[in-house]
């Protein structure tokens, strides 16, 4: 992180975003030219190394991305489903191998066989109709998944229409913003992006930091392979997210809302933009909304392919056009975030919860779920379930209920499920009954609720390969700033790969040292989190794994 770069990027404001400009420059050829990057550097009074360094970080900006026309999903769910070799083969019939790249999770974990072509996502049966897709305008990019709620239909509640939906916001504007914040605190809604931090406290922290400029960022980078609940909200309930951002802005005195949406969700970007336009038309955003003191503008920033950009400080650097390397904390974003101004970063789903809280009061939310994990939670189930989809359940619902009653059970035998993304725990099949869906139950059993995506590991999938895949992902997506993760994830991947492919045996002590080094030493939860599923694997699949170790 560079304070100077934050300031210089901030001079132009969010409307003239450096990162946005780089994205636009990449559109034609898949990567901006060096001359264009030099020019941008000059325009922003920064170094040529800065724009070049940033561009080379991202999958969809780096020089190797030049000329790519299609991307095959290599997310965990698609890998476990074993559909992707075929996708590549089929695409190669129509495209040069050099025109095919990778994307990590298109949010089509429920159908798999996912790929992106010409800016659209396809999955499932689409592969069989490549003739109608390649080189054509097509509607075959749609997908279907189940959506259902348990006792409380809140996040999945059907959308009425704009005026009615935003009435509680108009109403809130007549109230003291402090009392509005109070309701959020009462609800005890905790962050859905993974860490579970109480939203009310974060908002209060930001509110109490004096500054004329503040930002609300919606973290819509949903990078966890296997997760598509944010995608669901963005595409099916975009107003719930925008509503939440408006409220967050009102209680913190922020007047800019930024949605950082991953490039792998092209449809989401369009739908959210339409929703913002609708608000503009209704005069629900802009200067002095409804004649009040409150002003608010939205801006969508399209991400460019990097998992670490989901981490909030990397995300902030990304928006600034800096290299998205993780920042040290303190200062926390709520004190010094985007362009060094106080900034709130919340997950899509966290923000979506505010409509219910503001409409019905904090205690209505608090009444749902468990003592410490209040409200409902979206769970995304992948295609190993009979009924893959998005399910809204009360916190505290037994995991078995989610899997069997909502998901309809597994299609075929599954030996483990990874819940909460690549950094989430690896739950062996026999532990499913021990868990209820809330932060505490998972933590107590040595797992992590995270964003609550569920990816199944089929019976015939070697766990050593799963470990290798995790390390490979962690290494590929490491920002590279801190030593343990930059080097350690690579060494982990190499050890697993060598053990899998040769008679090399992993030194058990060294392997544990590596995991401890990552856990204790990493700057962020990326390097710090990857040992959890690996340790789960070592604990629960020792029989299968011990042949790869030396003792």
């Amino acid at each position, binding site marked *: 992180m560079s304070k100077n770069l934050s300031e210089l990027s901030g001079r132009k404001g969010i409307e003239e975003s450096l990162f946005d400009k780089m994205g636009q420059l990449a559109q034609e050829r898949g990567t901006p030219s060096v001359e264009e990057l030099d020019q941008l550097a000059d325009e922003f009074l920064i170094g040529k*190394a800065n724009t070049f360094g940033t561009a080379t970080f991202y999958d969809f900006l780096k020089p190797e991305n030049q000329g790519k026309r299609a991307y095959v999903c290599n997310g965990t769910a698609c890998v476990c489903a074993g559909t992707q070799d075929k996708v590549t083969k089929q695409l190669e019939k129509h495209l040069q191998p050099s025109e095919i790249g990778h994307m990590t999770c298109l949010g089509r974990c429920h159908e798999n066989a996912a790929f992106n072509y010409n800016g659209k996502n396809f999955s499932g049966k689409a592969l069989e109709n490549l003739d109608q897709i390649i080189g054509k305008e097509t509607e075959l990019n749609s997908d279907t998944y189940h959506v259902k709620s348990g006792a409380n239909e809140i996040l999945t509640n059907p959308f009425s229409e704009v005026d009615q939906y935003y009435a509680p916001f108009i109403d809130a504007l007549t109230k003291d913003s402090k009392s509005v914040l109070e309701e959020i605190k009462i609800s005890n809604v905790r962050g859905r992006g993974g860490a579970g931090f109480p939203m009310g406290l974060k908002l209060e922290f930001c509110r109490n930091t004096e500054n004329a400029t503040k930002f609300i960022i919606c973290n819509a980078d949903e990078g966890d392979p296997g997760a598509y609940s944010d995608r669901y909200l963005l595409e099916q309930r975009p107003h719930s997210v925008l509503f939440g951002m408006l409220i967050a802005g009102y209680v913190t005195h922020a007047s800019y809302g930024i949605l950082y949406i991953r490039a792998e969700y092209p449809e989401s970007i369009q739908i959210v933009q339409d929703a913002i336009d609708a608000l503009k038309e209704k005069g629900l955003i802009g200067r002095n909304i409804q004649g009040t003191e409150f002003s608010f503008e939205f801006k969508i920033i399209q991400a460019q392919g*990097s998992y670490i950009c989901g981490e909030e400080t990397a995300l902030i650097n990304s928006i600034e056009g800096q290299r998205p390397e993780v920042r040290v904390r*303190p200062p926390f974003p709520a004190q010094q975030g985007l362009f060094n101004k106080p900034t709130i970063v919340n997950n899509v789903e966290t923000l979506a919860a505010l409509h219910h809280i503001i409409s019905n009061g904090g205690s209505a939310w608090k009444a749902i779920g468990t003592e410490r994990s209040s409200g409902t939670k979206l769970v995304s189930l992948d295609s190993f379930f009979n009924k893959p989809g998005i399910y809204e359940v009360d916190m505290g619902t037994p995991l078995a209920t989610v899997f069997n009653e909502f998901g309809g059970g597994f299609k075929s035998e599954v030996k483990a499920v990874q819940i909460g993304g690549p950094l989430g725990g690896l739950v062996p099949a026999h532990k499913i009954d021990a868990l209820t869906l809330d932060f505490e139950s998972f933590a107590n059993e040595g797992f992590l609720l995270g964003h609550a995506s569920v990816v199944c590991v089929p019976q015939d999938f070697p766990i050593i390969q799963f470990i290798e895949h995790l390390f490979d992902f962690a290494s590929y997506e490491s920002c590279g700033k801190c030593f343990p993760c930059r080097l350690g994830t*690579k060494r982990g991947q190499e050890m697993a790969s060598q053990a899998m492919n040769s008679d*090399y045996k992993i030194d058990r002590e060294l392997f544990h040292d590596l995991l401890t080094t990552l856990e204790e*030493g990493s700057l962020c939860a990326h390097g710090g989190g990857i040992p959890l599923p690996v340790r789960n694997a070592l604990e629960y699949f020792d029989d299968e794994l011990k042949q790869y170790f030396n003792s």
Partner: protein
Amino acid sequence: MKTAYINNEPHEIKDGETMLAFIKRFKGEKHVPTLCDAPNLDPFGACRVCSVAVALEEDGKTKTMASCHSPVAEGQYIYTDTASVKKLRKNIVELVLTDHPLDCLTCEVNGNCELQDVAAQVGIRDVRYPAGANHLHYTKDMSHPYMTSDLSKCINCYRCVRACDEVQGEFVLSMSGRGFDSKIIKGSDNTFMDSDCVSCGACAQACPTSAISDVFQSKSVVESEVTRTICTYCGVGCNLDVSTSSGEILSIQAPYDAEVNQGHTCLKGRYAFKFYDHPERLDSPMIKRNGTFEKVSWEEVYTYIADKLGTFKKEFGPDSIAGISSARCTNEENYLMQKFIRAVIGTNNIDGCARVCHSPTALGMQQTFGTGAATNSIDDLKDTNCIMVIGANPTDAHPVTGAKLKQFAMKTGNVSIVIDPRRTEIARYATHHIPLRPGTNVAVLNMMMYYIITEGLADESFIGSRTEGFDEYKKEILAIDLDQIEGICGVDRNIIKEAAIAYAAAPNAMSFHGLGVTEHSQGTFTVMQIADLALLTGNIGRRGVGVNPLRGQNNVQGSADMGVQPHQGAGYMDITKPEVNLQYNKFYGVEVPSAIGYKIPEMFDAALEGKLKALWVIGEDIVQTDPNTQKVIKALNNTDLVIVQELFMTETAKQADVVLPGASFLEKSGTFTNGERRVQAVRQVVEPVVGAKVDGQIIVDIMNKMGYAQPDYDAKSMLDEINQIVPFFAGITWDRLGKNGLQWPVAKDGTDTQILHKEEFKIGKGQFIFNNWRETEELVEHAKDYPYILTTNRELEHYNCGAMTRRTGNELILKDDYLMINPEDAKEHMIKDGEFVCIESPRGKVDVKARITDEVKSGILSTTFHFPDIMINNLTGDIHDSEAKCPEYKVVAVRIRKSKGKYKTLAEA
């Protein structure tokens, strides 16, 4: 008292400090190992080697935290060497070594490598990982005369990137790629030579290994001694740690504990030292006989000089002799030179190069404040809200201060105002840039004051209690003609108004000015206005405010302080006053004259009139750097005895009758006074090259030869003499100077002064003195025939006449002088980038290569003057500041055309 515990021992914590800083205070620098932390950089948290275990109660449950960026909190129990943190550190370093060449013994920094030290400290024995991917195949970058890189040794600590950003503010370095593949890049993955690197060396000094280094291998540890001294290249006065081995200089690093430069330098200070033993150094006194120089002994030359001077003195009177002392030399040497001229020769014909740069500053500030020196210190930047930079390009001319000003200007909350015809580096970042036509400073500043007064932003209470003459002044200001000013300066009045309001509204505002203020026909008046602007807004007498001239040469402040001026003796005392002279007479033991002597331009005039018989010039290339070259040469030729004391055979030395080989700053001791009145110890690093002598000793020898008893040159005893006669040096002794020097005035007890004019001015009240704008004669007379305005500027890589810097690697970075020309003007004359342009002024013409840039506006040209091949001063004229006689280098009426003849072919070569 707030406490936290280190290994269960209670210690007091400071607000806002990190755990690492806390631990270092009590356990020493190296107690906790680190790899990515550096003394002058913000905490970054990359290596994690600084991890410690932290509990909330004694021996409680601990959490591992990186100490470098975690703030320490009251009641914390920090454990610095638990088994688990020790193991963690070792395991991290082991990972680092999986991607690092294991050839320490042949590495340039062997024995002085932080990775090596930390590996030893954490007790690494072997690397247990199987062979894997690595970056050992990266090749070296040896493209640059100074900077080198060997990224196979890089540990990705980002210290270089951060140094280039946080210290130098240049953004040359970054990473490319991500994760394991991330790699340090220069520019868009170029070589150092092809990048925008300004060779400050901050990255090389910051790098813990030899991954980024320099050709001098500054971090290597040959058996060497380190001497701390002061840079000779500009008025910033950076402290340098010079490494030597058996009397040879190996390299230079910047000490982190230097108050002036905190571990930073520019390329001149750090790398441009190889002139010192350059084969072209003068190695013997020489006397010109029949047009050729003959080497002679010191004895012979001393006798020759003493005889001649004695004869002239007797035959034509003492006023037929004059001396030009050097702002490159020490205070002690300058003191001696003026003493020689006054006490031994008996004339006040002593002047220095301050004449051609900051004489208007001294004069202007003396008239308004009573003291002709910077009111504040550079460190005050930490406490200011607004900087105003007028006629200065500090990133090139005062690079270390320039870097600090740029850091200031980059921060959005700060206000920065740049008044300069050129869009300088600082101007690019400034909040307000006023690109005025050269020669209109007075007009623009008057307009600023007009707006400050009419907007009600004048500080009435300060004006009332601490100043005089405001009512009259205000009347004059309110009567200025805004339409006329807008017309002549060529800047929209609203831009000027906004800047004026910003300056006046800032709680604390500091101004900085350079030669773009002084080298004008209205130079002194401009300085007075800058001072009055500070008075008008109450920006005087506390931290973060004031008027701060960026003094050009390293000791230009000191040479004036020491009396190298024809109208004031050592300590600025007025030699025309009998009671003052009485003091000098008593002190020097002889009678000194009371008539004001010649200023430099007057010396030339006197020479041309045949009145000047002898001129002794020390360390200044007046032929190349003074205006109107041909006239200077004529004047020298018309002087019977020209003595030039120099390091090299400069253009001036070539015109001399006697040449004396002097010593460089690395070869002598003494003091330099920097632009913030800081007197710092210059310590001899090596003996003078064979044949050369310390300049002070040469003067002493001649004094003795001419019958005045003066003890041998020695910094300590010289200071003991100076502190008796110069009031503001009263408490300065060699031993008191310590590492960071003292800022004058220094009281007898050694107390020094960071801020001047706190309670009152030396002359009681600050003076408001109005002066209206007047067009320079240069343009009145010549603008019609010579429609372009040429102004002069300096480049980072070279120092003035370039005699020193051109004999270092800097030559390879910047090889020529060049002319900046706006694209429109270039187009009109069909001049392409890199082609030669013939510039013609009423005095002469020269051909210079064009650099097409919108840094200058249409109608304005700007050029450097570091290279003798071009001799830009063939163009400059005879116009001087009306008060201080500083030449007007900044406004020359010229016309241009594309060059013909040999220059056409040169450009194509």
